[in-house]
């Protein structure tokens, strides 16, 4: 571990950096924790959704009369029940959402844009009745030719998904109807001249498939509505406040009428930052005047919730003989799914962010296709971009016969460098990560026959955004900390650790709670690797505010000035004339709070504009069976700068989980469609996520280069780990078989093809 100078580095921590048992763990190992589908209310109805059997069609007529007469049916909802709304942006955490598209994705209006697109919904006494009623809804479709691939979408005579909608962004933009929703472009220096001066140039197309977040808990909600218009929404979400504003906009409701209670969340990875079921359940509940529960099946999750974009990226990279990068050029095509809004923007910003490249250019296209509308997936867009660039770097390393880590070290960004996307880097840990990878025993482990070692790196911005927290003191001197961020991977523990660190009490004496939208202050969603960073800062501030109260109470008890009281190691200590007093512990002060001013409670809010970026370097050793094309991951290492690991086990857990998702995306996971645009593998048997026997232990090195923007030096760690693996694994496979592959996932048939091609 390295630990360079910087903010927070000289602080001696007592609790931060330890590994206590997480506070919510007991309920999760005993089955007590309540997830989205675990709530049942008296009189509750069950909701089901009728989904489009076509990938692209116009809805000519929709008749629900027969379904309404079915036994047990209490309400039916179609797009006619949703208010018409105009276009226009709304901020939603890291991304921007068009409310009209959001609504049309939740319930198709006029046109269905993917197989599985919601067309109508039924609430009935039992789920079987609701499903039977769905079958009795008659829909008259005019079936249109589906646009399933980027090539089809860009073809001259391509069917148009959104007639009359113009591309936006950086000119030149396509004239007339187009499936290109946005074009971004930027350049620096004289790219063409620089390529002419390069000693070695590589270029190629790098393809990655559409992949799903694959959270194990399907989307679920239970909604109760009241006669006064209020809606109580229980749901599995990364952002209860985001659900509140998105439900309000899609239903054109007064947000004040909506309360959202987040259930325990069974994974999200970005996929639960948007909404699918909640407004539908509100409308069904209003009509039926009963609580309504809606739970997706796994097939619905695959067909109709956000995967991330499949991409085609053309990249060209030029170097001097000594390995210094001179020019880069990239064209990125991103599948947006049925509606605009792929993570192409983030991809274009992260693409070159890890390296100093004096001349570069990129073009990015957001392209609609008749596939499910993409949603955020862990560092959205960055893995696709890094796959192209980090593979090209590996190809250059081979051509130059330079060690792939040395080649990266030669060009890596460091403090003071200007990032390709604009800002100047503050203290960052990319070089430390590269060095740690190079020094790791895995990098020196001998490789056998048919084995290859891949290196890859990754960058992610991380975000700050708005957070608030409240810390209250109980009369026994224990504390409660409340925030509005659903705990998706151990954040309750990091919030409790933070309070314990500040107040000087054992972490077991702090109870961390996640509140609903009426009981806690506003928090942006759990995403962007922001909770331990930004919400953690709010918790630090709230704890400090509590300490101010504690000092004042001690001054009252001692009859001295507040200035004469210091808070040290969990107790009030008298100084300057008050030093004769015996120090008061938090428990001593809490015991007397009724006589010194009443309850002790404090809140704080933060809105950090930046976060301090994360860098990671991965190593992967793979063996390829030349007979079957099957790849086996032998060893895997994640090195990443965490700034300061608050709970190291959960930091390692983020590293390992992100790596595993990336390995799956690189080797096995992909959306497969038939010629009519129907997804052929909407289940875990055929959409092949890694299982325990697919993986080795995933080794980790937590580098700690303190983030100057955070009092402890914390950096977000959640997203960066999925950025390097696509290229890391791909580079390992390519080196193992001795032929460069350019398409993910590197399934056995593709690897066999590559081996055959090499044989000629």
């Amino acid at each position: 571990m390295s630990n360079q100078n910087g903010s927070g580095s000289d602080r001696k921590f007592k609790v931060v950096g330890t590994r206590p048992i997480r506070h919510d763990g007991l309920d999760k190992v005993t089955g007590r924790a309540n997830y989205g589908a675990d709530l049942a209310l008296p009189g509750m109805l069950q909701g089901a959704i009728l989904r489009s059997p076509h990938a692209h069609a116009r809805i000519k007529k929709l008749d629900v009369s027969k379904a309404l007469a079915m036994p047990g049916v209490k309400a039916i909802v179609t797009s006619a029940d949703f208010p018409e709304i105009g276009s226009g942006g709304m901020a939603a955490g890291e991304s921007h959402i068009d409310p009209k598209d959001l609504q049309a994705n939740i319930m198709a209006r006029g046109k269905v844009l993917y197989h599985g697109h919601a067309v109508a919904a039924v609430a009935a006494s039992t789920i079987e009745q609701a499903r039977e009623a769905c079958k009795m809804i008659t829909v008259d479709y005019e079936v249109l030719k589906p646009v399933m691939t980027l090539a089809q979408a860009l073809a001259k005579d391509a069917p148009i998904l959104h007639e009359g909608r113009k591309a936006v962004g950086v000119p030149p933009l396509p004239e007339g109807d187009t499936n290109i929703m946005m074009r971004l472009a930027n350049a620096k220096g004289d790219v063409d001249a620089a390529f002419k001066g390069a000693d070695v140039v590589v270029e190629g197309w790098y393809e990655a498939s559409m992949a799903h977040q694959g959270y194990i808990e399907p989307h679920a909600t239970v909604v109760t509505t009241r006669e006064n218009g209020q809606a109580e929404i229980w749901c599995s979400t990364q952002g209860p406040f985001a659900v509140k504003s998105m439900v309000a906009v899609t239903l054109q409701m007064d947000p004040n009428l909506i309360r959202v209670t987040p259930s325990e969340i069974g994974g999200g990875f970005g996929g639960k930052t948007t909404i699918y079921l909640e407004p539908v359940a509100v409308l069904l509940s209003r009509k039926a005047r009963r609580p309504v529960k809606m739970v997706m099946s796994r097939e619905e999750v695959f067909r109709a919730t956000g995967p991330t974009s499949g991409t085609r990226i053309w990249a060209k990279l030029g170097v001097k003989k000594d390995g210094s990068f001179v020019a880069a050029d990239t064209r990125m095509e991103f599948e947006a799914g049925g509606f605009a809004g792929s993570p192409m923007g983030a991809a274009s910003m992260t693409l070159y962010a890890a390296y100093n490249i004096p001349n570069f250019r990129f073009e990015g296209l957001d392209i609609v296709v008749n596939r499910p509308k993409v949603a955020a997936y862990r560092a959205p867009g960055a893995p696709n971009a890094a796959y192209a660039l980090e593979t090209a770097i590996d190809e250059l390393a081979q051509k130059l016969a330079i060690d792939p880590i040395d080649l990266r070290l030669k060009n890596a960004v460091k403090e003071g460098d200007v990032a390709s996307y604009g800002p100047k880097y503050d203290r960052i840990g990319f070089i430390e990560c590269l060095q740690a990878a190079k020094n790791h025993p895995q990098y020196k482990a001998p490789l056998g026959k048919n084995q290859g070692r891949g290196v890859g790196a990754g960058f992610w911005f991380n975000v700050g955004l708005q957070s608030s927290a409240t810390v209250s003191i109980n009369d026994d001197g224990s504390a409660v900390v409340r925030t509005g961020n659903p705990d998706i991977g151990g954040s309750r523990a990091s919030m409790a650790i933070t309070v314990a660190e500040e107040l000087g009490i054992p972490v077991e004496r702090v109870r961390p709670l996640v509140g609903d939208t009426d009981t806690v202050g506003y928090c942006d969603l759990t995403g962007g690797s922001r909770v331990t960073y930004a919400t953690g800062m709010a918790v630090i501030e709230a704890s400090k505010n509590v300490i101010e109260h504690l000092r004042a109470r001690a001054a009252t008890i001692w009859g001295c000035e507040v200035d004469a009281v210091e808070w040290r190691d969990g107790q009030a200590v008298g100084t300057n004339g008050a030093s004769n007093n015996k120090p008061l512990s938090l428990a001593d002060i809490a015991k007397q709070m009724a006589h010194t001013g009443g309850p002790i409670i404090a809140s704080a809010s933060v809105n950090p504009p930046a976060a301090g970026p994360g860098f990671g370097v991965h190593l992967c050793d793979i063996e390829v069976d030349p007979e079957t094309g099957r790849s086996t991951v032998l060893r895997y290492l994640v090195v990443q700068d965490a700034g300061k690991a608050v709970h190291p086990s959960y930091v390692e857990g983020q590293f390992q989980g992100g790596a595993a998702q990336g390995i799956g995306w690189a080797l096995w996971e992909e959306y497969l469609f038939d010629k009519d645009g129907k997804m052929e593998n909407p289940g875990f048997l055929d959409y092949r996520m890694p299982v325990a026997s697919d993986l080795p232990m995933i080794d980790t090195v937590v580098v700690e280069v303190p983030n100057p923007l955070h009092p402890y030096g914390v950096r977000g760690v959640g997203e960066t780990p999925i950025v390097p693996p696509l290229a890391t694994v791909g580079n390992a496979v390519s080196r193992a078989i001795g032929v460069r592959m350019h398409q993910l996932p590197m399934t056995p048939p593709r690897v066999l093809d590559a081996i055959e091609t090499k044989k000629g």
Partner: protein
Amino acid sequence: MAKIQVQTTINGETFDYLCDGQQSLLSVLRDELGLTGTKEGCSTGDCGACSITLDGQLVPSCLVLAAEAQGREIGTVEGVSSATGLHPIQQKFLEHAALQCGVCTPGLIVATRALLLKNPNPTEAEARYYLAGNLCRCTGYDKIIKAVLDAAASMRGESA
């Protein structure tokens, strides 16, 4: 259609329930008996979140008909801990931080208990293959496998 009456034993306690002919045991456990510790992740037997034991055999309860449980012994996550505290498997999952979101955890704990009853001293590979039917998307399995092997050692009376 007439409901089927079933008498079964769940975590050592006798239960009577009525079910439909096509209703899954998972649905009865969760929706009729309130045993929501058993989770539904796919309902096709691919994810293992609904793992239970049926007469000691590890099965996905989504693929068992509720009517099939007549006269059988069911074990769910709710029966793993006891009045004396957590089962060593649960304790080791906590100590090793072997869960993030926790939704696969009940299934994994039930599956691990079944594994260690059969094989008290599994190798890493044996543990990985036995638990290959239990998907976890958060952890990459590293800490889960460490917790399982440590729990096995602790149950054998060794310290890992």
